[in-house]
């Protein structure tokens, strides 16, 4: 946690959550851990903003939830990607990649190219 962390770009949390639960059902804390784990702790996520995002995604039908048992035998709410969520994740990821390419292209441009 001492490493330098980046703040999340606006609007990307939803995509990251969808990606995290696409790898397997997770509870809310698990989502947080998985994002931190994959990002090697380079992203700073406001814990409090995670749940509204989860609720919003569930409300929109991208993910669905059910109560289950956690690793340490406690009751926890698990989130799972729905078919619609899967498609959503795919289009969002494509969009993001295209955008990243474009931005990167712009930033790497040299005076000769212009």
């Amino acid at each position, binding site marked *: 946690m001492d490493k330098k962390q980046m703040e999340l770009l606006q609007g990307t949390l939803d995509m990251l959550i969808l990606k995290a639960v696409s790898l397997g059902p997770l509870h809310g804390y698990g989502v947080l851990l998985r994002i931190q784990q994959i990002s090697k702790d380079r992203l700073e996520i406001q814990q409090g903003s995670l749940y509204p*995002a989860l609720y919003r995604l569930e409300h929109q039908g991208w993910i669905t939830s059910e109560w289950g048992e*956690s690793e340490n035998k406690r009751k926890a709410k698990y989130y799972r990607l729905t078919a619609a969520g899967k498609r959503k994740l795919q289009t969002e990821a494509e969009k993001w990649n295209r955008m990243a390419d474009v931005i990167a292209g712009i930033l790497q441009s040299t005076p000769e190219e212009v």
Partner: protein
Amino acid sequence: MRIWSRVRSWLRAMARRARMENEMDAELRFHMEAFAEDLVRRGVPREEALRRARIEFGGVERAKEECREARGVNFISSLVQDLRFGLRMMRKNLGFTATAVLALALGIGVNTIVFTAFDALTMRPRAVKDPDRLVGVYRTKEGESRDALSYPDYIYYRNHNKTLSDLAMFGFGMGVTTSDLPPASPEDMPRMASAIGFHLPQLLQGGGRPLMCFYVSGNYFQLLGAHPAAGRLVLPEDDQPGARPVVVLSGNFWRSQFHSSPNVIGSTIHLNRVPFTIVGVTPVDYLGTLPIVPVLWAPIAVRPMLGNGTRESLENRSERAGIVYGHLKAGVSLPDAEAELSVLASQLRAAFPDVERKSGVSVVSEREFAHMDSEGWPVVAATMGAVALLLLIACANVAGLLLARAATRRREIGVRLSLGATRWRLLQQLLIESSLIAFFAGAVGLPLASWGLHLLVTEISSSLPSYWGSIALQATPDIRVFAYTVFISLMTGVAFGLTPALQTLKTDVNSALKDSGSMLGERLSKSRLRNILIVAQVAACLVLLINSALLLRGSQRALRIEPGFDSKHVVFLEMYTPALSGYSEAELLQLSRQLRTELGSLPGITSVTLASRAPFAGGNRFVPVGTATEEPPVNAAGEDQRPAVSYSYVLPNYFETLGIPIVRGRSFTPQEAEGEAPVAVVSEAMARHFWPGQDPIGKRMAIGSAHGQTPYPGETAPFFPESEVIGVAQDVRNLSLSKVDDSYFYLPLSQSSQLTRMILLRTKGNTSSLLALLGGAVRRVDASLPVVAAPLDWAVSLDPYFIVSRVGGILCSVVGALGLFLACLGVYGMVGYSVVERTHEIGIRMALGAQRQQVLGLVLRENARPMLFGTVIGIAVSAAVARLISAILFGLNPADAISFAGVSLLLIAVAMFAGWLPARRAMRVDPMVALRYE
């Protein structure tokens, strides 16, 4: 699908609020505990770990609130909050609420009544099988409107067409008499007649009671998919020549006369003295193809048995027998069917050139009861326009009230804004409040409308004589009408809630809190809106009131029109025996003679006479007439080209009985009448038309032709190759109240050989009190003979123009009075509001030395301006409308000064009074209090 999941999650959240809250708690607690446990595992002490977990998580309550919002739960809870708050506000301002709800409810209720009536007549499909494919087949003839088919034509179309599934005929109804039922009693008498100012002829108590019988072909009920309430309906085998005569009762008659007893089925009833078997009953209020419930239904084949024409007349191609209905076969369009039937019509023209000449066929949709034609639209448009004006007044009224209230709530709204309420949230709140008013108004307006409709239908139906059948229009507001009501109420609420709401939101927080928002620019735009509302209300109200005044004054004028005969002292009686009603002609002649003797002996009767028709009583007869010296001009088609002139057969004392002066020559002698001599009395107009500038006495005319026909059984069509004019009678209004007859002549009536059913009496006294006496006389002669009677001035009031202008005037003045009431409320509220709003300014004026009277004058003057402007607009619009209705004003100038000036002054006076009441408050403003108010 996603929408569905959203709705589901929302519904789940709503339905199980508590459970969602618990789950949310558990989920967040799990998160923090799991986080804390991880920290503990890394060696952090437990207490410290829990503390850090809470810090890392951030505001738990805020997260929860955001979660709720994500689920859409917040929207609902704030909605519920706003609803509760709105209801509380309504209860707190009961006066405001009651006024606004009442105003809108009136507007909505009256509009719903009109919409439902319109809907029931012209839009609601008939309650028959497959109404969308139901069509009517009519005979058309060049230059004439659609007409009924003859029976043989109907049979031809039925047997030869391939585009329609079946064809059934609805024959015209007729009153039949029966001796099996008690004589006419007071319950059979129409009510309400005098309330509107016209009276229908009364069935005399003590005489017989005619029953309205509809004739239908044997397949009619099958075609419409009707089911009996008991027994069976008319079947094809009943509709054969020589079949056993059967009759079906209407459910209404079965209930009222036989207490719905099943024993009636199979019993015998004598109709026009012929025994009929009652085979079944239709459901109560069952309508076939007319919006009228008859008493009886009988097969067309029995018509000759009831005396309504002979078997031959049923087979006559020129005799109109009834309306023909059928269903389009699947895949067949209306033009297809018409094209096919037109081919059949041309075959008929070729086969029967003399009767079918020029006749064609037209097929029209019969999905609804009434076709909106060019004659119906102006009436519908005028009615809808009038009630729409009422709704406009109501809306302007409520808008004014909301506006006024917005001013008093500016402070409250300022406080809410400064405490951080979003403007959207406030808008939502204000819109909900005005929608609540609209919904309450709809909730009050709908039962109001359904009660009004019920009243209207039962009143109209009870004002009809029973032998016309009764009306059973489906007038219960249906789901579409309900939707319409709610739509109007919501639109009103939103449209007029929004205007003040948006204005309120322009409120600057600071000025609102300081309560000085009423100054300068803001006040200007607001007072303009207020003025527009007053202008609209006054103008709309004035249009209604001026036109109602015009119509009522016009119809009043109609009652004073001198028809040329003495309508005040003459009563007509008509033996209601269509198609002889089972009597023979000789019997009816005998009855007529006995009746006249009996009537002549009543006290106060000075003379009794007979005529083929009474003025205004319908049954206009006309015949081609020419001057005898010329050959009857005939056109290429062999049709008589001489002008058709209206006439009556009368006894010699007709002129004296009705008080029509003979201006030249003389009336008939009894010998001329009895011998049906070739003599005639003509009207002055006819004399001028046929023999301009000459003395008509002694002139000859040729009346009728050898093959002339009359539709009146018992009468012969006049045919006099050379008839001498022996007298000239003064011009009268025999046919229409709105003008003197163009031409009219009188022929001598032989009382021993020519049957007429019309008896006219002259009395010295009051005509309406005579009616009860007349019933007794009829009873002494023949208790089963139905006789209707009316003083002639009643008949005058049945003139169609009179009815239109009278009913229109009454409707208009009811709506206008409601409008006036609402407009006064509106003016009262708005003037009151302007006074409250300007308390501060008035205080300054008074502090600077203005007198109370001056202040009052200022307030009144300022409010008088929009009223006067509204009056000018109202007068201009009324003048345009008045020109449109000038035809039914009976010669009243459409720019009638009394109506225009009188009503305008009345309206201004009432509106000024409504403004003066709250304006007095301005005088009572205490400058000290007003200035400290800041």
